[in-house]
């Protein structure tokens, strides 16, 4: 395992950012440091590759949202039947609070990441938990909003697009929360030196991604109401 190739003298603190200081791999961009034998493991992935792969994946994932956004904009600007009968538009106040909470959680997760970088594990867990709480607040708020809306999935293109967009985004928020829970549990394991610093950075990147998507979504659906 990777932990075996940790250079001697790495602090014994159970810091999840072990091989991040891995030399060589980043020193020669484009060349994997085979031969030197560090950090690479035939059956697991090299920690640095994980980040590359994850960024590629996120870039691709963002295009699903882009396609859905384009679809929404096309419907909104051209559909002959938009709002279902009796529906005036969307209530903005609660969703705006939700938005503020979700967007500020990006700052909080950054604080968590920084704490981990400084090897302050307790502080890391506190910020991490706060991020999770804020994310949960968002999801619950969204669920409550859904329950009180006067239109359903099958009420025309408007209802369908609204639920598809917010639902697909909500699925990402829930995924993010599950990943955070996973890393929280892992950070409690005693004496571990695993490349999870990369994992934390990846989750945090994912969280920022989910936030950015939400801002666009919010502008498209809640701010741009008039036709």
């Amino acid at each position, binding site marked *: 395992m990777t932990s075996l190739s940790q250079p001697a003298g790495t602090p014994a603190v159970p810091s999840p950012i072990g091989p991040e200081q891995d030399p060589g791999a980043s020193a020669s961009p484009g060349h994997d440091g085979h031969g030197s034998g560090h950090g690479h493991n035939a059956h697991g992935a090299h920690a640095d590759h994980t980040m590359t792969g994850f960024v590629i994946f996120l870039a*691709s994932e*963002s295009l699903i949202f882009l396609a859905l956004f384009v679809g929404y904009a096309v419907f909104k600007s051209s559909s002959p039947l938009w709002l279902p009968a009796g529906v005036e538009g969307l209530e903005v106040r609660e969703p705006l609070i939700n938005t503020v909470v979700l967007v500020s959680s990006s700052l909080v997760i950054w604080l968590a990441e920084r704490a981990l970088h400084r090897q302050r594990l307790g502080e890391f867990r506190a910020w991490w938990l706060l991020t999770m709480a804020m994310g949960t607040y968002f999801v619950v708020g969204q669920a409550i909003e859904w329950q009180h809306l006067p239109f359903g999935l099958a009420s025309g293109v408007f209802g369908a697009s609204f639920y598809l967009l917010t639902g697909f985004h909500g699925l990402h928020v829930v995924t993010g929360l599950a990943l955070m829970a996973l890393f929280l549990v892992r950070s409690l394991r005693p004496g571990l030196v695993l490349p999870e610093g990369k994992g934390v950075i990846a989750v945090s990147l994912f969280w920022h991604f989910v936030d950015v998507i939400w801002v666009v979504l919010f502008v498209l659906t809640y701010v741009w109401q008039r036709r």
Partner: protein
Amino acid sequence: MASSSSSSPSFDPRMIKEPQPLPGSPGSWRRYFSFNTDAKVIGIQYIAVALLFLLVGGLLAMIMRGELITPPADLVDPTVYNGLYTMHGTVMLFLFLFPVLNGFNNLLIPPMIGAPDMAFPRLNALAFWLFPVFGVILMASFLVPGGPSGSGWWAYPPLSTQNPLGHALNGQLLWILAVAVSGVSSIMGAVNFCTTIIRMRAPGMGLFKMPIFCWTALAAQLIQLMGLPVLTAGAVMLLFDLSFGTSFFKPEGGGDPMLYQHFFWFYSHPAVYVMVLPIFGVFSELFPVYARKPLFGYHVVAIASFAITGLSLIVWVHHMFYSGTPQWMRNVFMVTTMLIAVPTGIKVFAWIATLWRGSIRLSTPMLFCLAGLFNFIFAGITGVMLATVPVDIHVGNTYFVVGHFHYVIFNMITFGVFAAIYHWFPKFTGRMYYEGLGKLHFILTFIGSTLNFLPMHWAGLMGMPRRVASYDPEFASANVLASLGAFLLGVATIPFLLNIVSSWVRGPKAPPNPWNAIGLEWLLPSPPAAENFAEDVPTVISGPYGYGLGQPLVEDQERFERRAAGLKP
């Protein structure tokens, strides 16, 4: 394994003392049926299952051709016929071509760049095992009430949002699910291939020392990453329309069926380049080997791959010229479509220049490549004809289009697939194939495919519509020829399968480099050990395709050659 420390530090005796058990020998075949994370095992798994589905898709095609050998709909009724062509197209694209190409990516990319494996071996195995899953989902649609989807591989609404029997589980739903799972698997693959190529190249192998196959694989996987998400969005909306009563694509509920066509073709036009780019790679690898000359214009050929990637994303509306597309849009997309012929033409030129005055060796892989190139030039001409709006308005939706894309997809891409299988067969199985059977396979395939797909062009020009089970007797002669060709193609698979199976089991043992080819994969034993070069990766010092230039590819080339041959260094 520990013995490596006792000998010279750079020489790894594992290669000699513990050769891989020959695939097929007892105790080793089981790994092909397990969750194995070795890219070479996964590659062979992909290719084997894909070839199985080639037979399935071919069988469906032969039933269709059996129907079409006479003008009336007598063998199967038109509804069944709709299901047949839908499944045929879907099987061939999603269950044969994409997987077989992913198989090549798995086999070839790590050895070609000197990496021990893919960047994410477990993700790789997972992506492969999704393939049988969506294969079974799609095949299951033959068993559900109402039979398989009959809306074509494009699944245009409104046809694809109908569920006349009202069953929750219907052929169209299974089609959407299969395509969605296939998309997930392809994205996993794409992330893996791109990361591997970007981060795991051997020392000294800058981008411009990479074999063209890796360039084209990267360009093709980039298309997957950009296009598939859009198809996914469209497929999710279609699923909701079909099963949950939404009306994204239903005009009566305020939706827009054209939006689906845009989503679909935004991916599915580039998808044809996902399939053709790796074959451009195969051509660029094989022509230099069998003509003994360096690839003409290596840099230009490499960069043209990315020009194609870029352009392929802005031509999709040429599939919608007769779908009520506004005239300005038709004009724009006519121009972009014609532009894509430029980088493609540059590649064709480079291959011909490579062949020019080469000492050409007409072995089976080369025959398939040459015929594939010839067919591709023909298909490119009919492609540019179709890109011309006034022509397309006339021949769109006729057999001319069917002829065009079969010339690319079968007569060029599948020829390239066969060429690649023969060329790299000795490397990855450790056995030589039988040249006589290979040539027989080639001749039958060439005659069969020409008979099958060439007459379609004139049937189309005369006005025979596509997707029909019965037709006017004036088109009979072209259809008889096409059907005979199709049956001949069925016969042609016999020498192929016979060759592959018998030579894998008892063919002559293959040397490390039977074709005298240049490339990192040929510096490995046949078959390569599990981790290719493992820790002892050669340092690349010159570009690929140095045929006749007499320069070594890597530092210490002789040591690697001796080691591959199992000799003492």
